[in-house]
């Protein structure tokens, strides 16, 4: 597998803000790659540098070997970007929008592919509707369609499901997964960690313009092993002090992190002996959210290059 996107030591400063502080990563062809981080971490700036909307102060970015600055025309033909903002041109219908976008990429007579995209995004009935008349979710679908008119080998989705209903979200992922199976590289930024966990094979986490974690999903999840026991008690007897010290209280429930199942019985026994009555009990496996919170709180180490994941 070749390298789809190579980002080397990219830096970008906006006034006093160091938006990107030496970001390096490589994304292989055919990957479904997730870019995560809190607001202001630099995800959109990084994607904008990749798309040529922002010019980096230092560093190099290549798309399938084409430099996004020096060889911008070739690089942009290889990229399809779905922007984060819900933008549209109010003068045109959906079909006109897609025909025009095809032309911008040097493609004429693209109606067969446009029809296929429209069908896959459930937009066929809206093809002749003016953009202004579409709902927010429909406009979002058109943005996805616009990014795909030139069949780009690398697709970048910048928070595509923000404010989108469940049905569309599932339809969208179904389509994007199909494109990924057909060989398109997909780069996704999202705030929905379950989405990233379900879709992405590999993840980079950004914090204050730096890559703080970079690894496969399974390795990342393995960084925070174990389970969480979540217990709700009846109001009669409070949790003893000694157990409180081991737990965190979330929404009136006590959560215990467990390294293994053998820790469950001693906990339950201690509660029983203290006279606590369990009202509800759940056992959950660590998920990407735990990893994300752990990494953002600094429990992981900064990943300086492609090969290092989150250090233990």
């Amino acid at each position, binding site marked *: 597998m070749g390298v789809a996107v190579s980002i080397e030591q990219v830096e970008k400063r*906006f006034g006093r803000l160091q938006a990107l502080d030496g970001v390096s990563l490589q994304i292989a062809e055919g990957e479904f790659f997730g870019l995560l981080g809190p607001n202001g971490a630099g995800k959109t700036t990084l994607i*904008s540098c990749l*798309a*040529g*909307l*922002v*010019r980096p102060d230092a560093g190099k970015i290549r798309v399938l070997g084409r430099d996004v600055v020096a060889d*911008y*025309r*070739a690089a*942009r*033909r290889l*990229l399809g*970007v779905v*922007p984060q*903002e819900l*933008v*549209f*041109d*109010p*003068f*045109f219908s959906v079909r*006109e929008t897609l025909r*025009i*976008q*095809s*032309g*911008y*990429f*040097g*493609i*004429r007579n693209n109606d067969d592919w446009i029809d296929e995209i429209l069908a896959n995004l459930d937009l066929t009935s809206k093809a002749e509707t003016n953009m202004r008349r579409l709902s927010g979710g429909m406009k979002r679908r058109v943005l996805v369609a*616009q990014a795909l008119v030139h069949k780009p080998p690398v697709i970048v989705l910048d928070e595509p499901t923000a404010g989108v209903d469940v049905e569309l979200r599932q339809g969208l992922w179904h389509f994007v997964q199909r494109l990924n199976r057909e060989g398109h590289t997909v780069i996704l930024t999202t705030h929905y960690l379950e989405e990233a966990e379900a879709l992405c094979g590999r993840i980079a986490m950004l914090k204050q313009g730096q890559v703080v974690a970079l690894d496969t999903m399974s390795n990342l999840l393995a960084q925070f092993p174990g389970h969480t026991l979540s217990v709700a008690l009846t109001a009669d007897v409070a949790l003893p002090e000694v157990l409180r010290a081991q737990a965190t209280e979330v929404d009136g429930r006590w959560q215990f992190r467990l390294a293994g199942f053998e820790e469950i019985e001693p906990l339950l026994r201690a509660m029983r002996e203290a006279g606590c009555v369990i009202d509800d009990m759940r056992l959950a496996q660590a998920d990407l959210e735990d990893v994300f919170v752990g990494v953002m709180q600094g429990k992981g180490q900064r990943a300086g290059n492609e090969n290092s994941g989150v250090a233990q």
Partner: protein
Amino acid sequence: MIEFRTLLYKEVLRFWKVGFQTVAAPVLSALLYLLIFSHVLDAQVKVNGVPYAAFLIPGLVMMSLVQNAFANSSSSLIQSKITGSVVFVLLPPISYVEFFLAYVVAAMLRGLMVGLGVLVVTGFFAPLTFIAPQWILIFALLGGGILGAFGMIAGIWADKFDQLAGFQNFLIMPLTMLSGVFYSIHSLPAFWQQVSHLNPVFYMIDGFRFGFFGVSDVAPEISLMVVAMSFFVVSAATLALLRSGYKLRY
């Protein structure tokens, strides 16, 4: 090439879809100017031997042409910047030269359409001659080109609609209204004649008018030189802005 043609097509479609506002309205404004001024002055005034209404028409045509060329590129850019839809033209592999040409040619086309409209409707009110059509054409093209490119600079620079309105009201309007549309600058005091000679729009209108009547305040060759120079300077400045990515690519 397909990239350029598509962007040009999109820019033309953009104003054509609201043609009532972008083409018909300025034609009506120019017609009102003609009706009012020629009603008041036509009987009393001749300029360079030409009846006032006839003298006024080429001025009104050129004024409408350049104002609409400016309005087209500037409003298209600022609208797409403010709504964010400018990303649709920034993401594709469109070079800055293609970008420049598409916006300027679209602005010229709107200017020429409005200018032609003004000429057709005002032509009923005064006898016009077309002594040197090649001058008419070249000044129309260059005038539209200059203001189209200038509109790009304004549209790129402005962050808000009121900044653009300031540009339009405090620069473009005075430059066009005080350029000899309504009078021969020979009727002005010496000082204001000198000031008018610093206004490139004066040369556009004077040269354009020469094409109709064969008379002008300055020789058409001099006007052509000034107008062509202005076109190259404004185009070079616009291309430099686009190349640097100023306020478009951060």
